[in-house]
């Protein structure tokens, strides 16, 4: 059974890696890592959001913060068209909730095992949220996060040093520290003390213009890292010794500059130099060092596990009746081939939404790009063919139908037609292409990609077994 996966983001990569682990021959067709490469350091299975349509931060009596597990349960209960509800049961209930949390935990463990060789770990869990700072000074109550930002839990830190780096763009330590302090007041938790600490970096280390990406590239070199280590070790020299929190109770918060690779080893050396915990801030789209690290680590894992990867765009799919038979690929740039054709017995669509190219606008309407599958918004209204501007509202924080739209699937992740039955025998969908939720406000983004990608892989393995028998 030949499996083709379309989409090189987290959903497609996780599915391909899982299929390879089950020894099914799999080809991944990827034009890039899509929205995954723009992700900012947390995995976000069920993260609270300040928007009304998002998941709650607190319980009903507002006395305490909800745990990630409770928020996952709230997502199942209150979002009937969310992919989690499709997979684990709409009514919620104990069985659905434990199925969902088991799936999340095992998915995070699988991803962790694929990323470890690239020095990237998936940290966290469903029992307690980590309060992580992003580059703008917003606090995110994350459940899972990647090495770099994951070490920056602001809870449990008595003192947070916000590093000030002269000349670095997109980073202003004082407003960042003020914003973080205000976030703790807004959340209603006792806050650590925030202190701005200048890092004494030599002239010339920060390039003209202050590009954080160029600083990250410098940190990737041994010499660049040595300069950063010296600055971190020497940051408090000349300060009057006072009563300072030590070790685990102190956190040095850096902007996202810790290199494109090997971040685990870099952090270990920085911790030693700093004498306390060290972490990066979460990024904020579209600037995303963490997203590039994740995309690189996924590419490395695909190569290592023997997944065939075609760097190409899909032009069209060949189909007969209720089966998809082959993919027609656009020729790669510089290639003399006219068009490549790839036969497949099973196809997984993990092509994302507009950023990934899974959804497109043509002839004045919104459509699924390859099969024109029916699209549904969060309320379950069919919207393919609608003009995009009919699906947006005046203010960005309002629910936006355009960005909760995608295909609808059954619990086996087969895309459904208007009659509620699967449209194809051998087609599955995963990741953001599945609609019914808004990643920006509901903050279940990469969690959905990972969980649906792995579930699609097991459904495909089951189908392969049935067809082989």
């Amino acid at each position, binding site marked *: 059974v030949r499996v083709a996966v379309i989409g090189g983001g987290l959903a497609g990569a996780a599915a391909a890696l899982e299929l390879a682990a089950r020894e099914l021959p799999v080809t991944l067709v990827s034009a890039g890592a899509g929205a995954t490469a723009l992700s900012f350091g947390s995995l976000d299975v069920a993260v609270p959001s300040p928007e009304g349509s998002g998941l709650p931060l607190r319980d009903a009596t507002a006395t305490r913060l909800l745990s990630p597990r409770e928020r996952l349960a709230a997502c199942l209960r209150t979002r009937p068209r969310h992919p989690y509800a499709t997979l684990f049961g709409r009514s919620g209930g104990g069985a659905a909730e434990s199925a969902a949390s088991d799936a999340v935990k095992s998915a995070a463990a699988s991803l962790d095992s694929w990323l470890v060789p690239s020095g990237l770990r998936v940290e966290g869990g469903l029992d307690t949220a980590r309060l992580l700072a*992003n580059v703008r000074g917003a606090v995110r109550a994350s459940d899972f996060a990647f090495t770099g930002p994951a070490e920056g839990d602001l809870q449990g830190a008595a003192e947070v040093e916000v590093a000030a780096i002269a000349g670095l763009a997109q980073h202003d330590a004082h407003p960042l520290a003020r914003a973080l302090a205000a976030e703790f007041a807004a959340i209603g938790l006792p806050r650590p003390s925030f202190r701005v600490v200048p890092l004494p970096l030599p002239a010339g280390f920060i390039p003209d213009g202050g590009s954080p990406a160029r600083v990250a590239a410098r940190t990737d070199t041994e010499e660049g890292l040595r300069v950063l280590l010296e600055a971190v070790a020497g940051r408090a020299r000349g300060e009057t010794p006072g009563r300072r929190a030590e070790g685990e109770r102190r956190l040095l918060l850096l902007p996202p500059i810790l290199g494109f690779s090997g971040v685990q080893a870099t952090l270990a050396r920085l911790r030693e130099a700093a004498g306390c915990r060290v972490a990066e801030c979460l990024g904020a789209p579209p600037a995303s060092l963490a997203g590039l690290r994740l995309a690189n680590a996924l590419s490395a894992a695909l190569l290592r596990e023997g997944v065939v990867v075609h760097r190409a765009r899909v032009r069209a799919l060949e189909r007969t009746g209720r089966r998809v038979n082959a993919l027609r690929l656009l020729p790669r740039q510089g290639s003399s081939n006219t068009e490549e054709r790839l036969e497949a017995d099973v196809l997984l669509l993990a092509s994302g939404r507009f950023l990934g190219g899974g959804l497109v606008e043509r002839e004045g309407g919104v459509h699924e790009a390859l099969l024109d599958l029916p699209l549904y918004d969060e309320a379950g209204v069919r919207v393919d063919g609608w003009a995009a501007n009919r699906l*947006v509202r005046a203010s960005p924080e309002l629910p936006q139908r355009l960005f909760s739209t995608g295909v609808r699937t059954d619990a086996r992740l087969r895309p459904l037609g208007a009659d509620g039955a699967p449209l194809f025998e051998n087609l599955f969908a995963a990741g953001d292409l599945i609609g019914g939720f808004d990643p920006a406000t509901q903050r279940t983004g990469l969690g959905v990609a990972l969980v649906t990608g792995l579930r699609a892989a097991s459904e495909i393995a089951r189908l392969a077994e049935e067809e082989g028998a």
Partner: protein
Amino acid sequence: VLEETPSAPRAELVTPSPRIVCACEPVTDAELIHAALREGLRTLTDCSLRVRLGVGACQGASCAAAAAGVLAEALGWSAEQAAYELTTFLAERWRVATPALAGAQIAALELHRAADVGARGFTRGDRTGHAGEDSPRRGASWEAA
């Protein structure tokens, strides 16, 4: 017509190595600081009118937050005011972008929404906020006790 006050030499206003805040319509932090302290610029929307901040390809998705940081530092905004200025500015960019949506503009708007709504915290914006005595312009050793 705005005039520079002769008593404050311009060199004081300009950082030694300007940082690029907006790459679409090249704007440096030095320009923003100068415009804020000498030309009466008060909001991010003023920035777009005066130095074209955020009116290029990304419509503020890449630069608005960084510019808010620079202005917060220069003008002593509180966290609440910085949040207010940022959301107000991005809401205006959203309003301008949404009536005519086609092709790649939809993907750009999807990214814009992730950069705005997807990265917000829990602090409520308030336009009257001021960092007050703790303003970093008045003392570099600001500390949130």
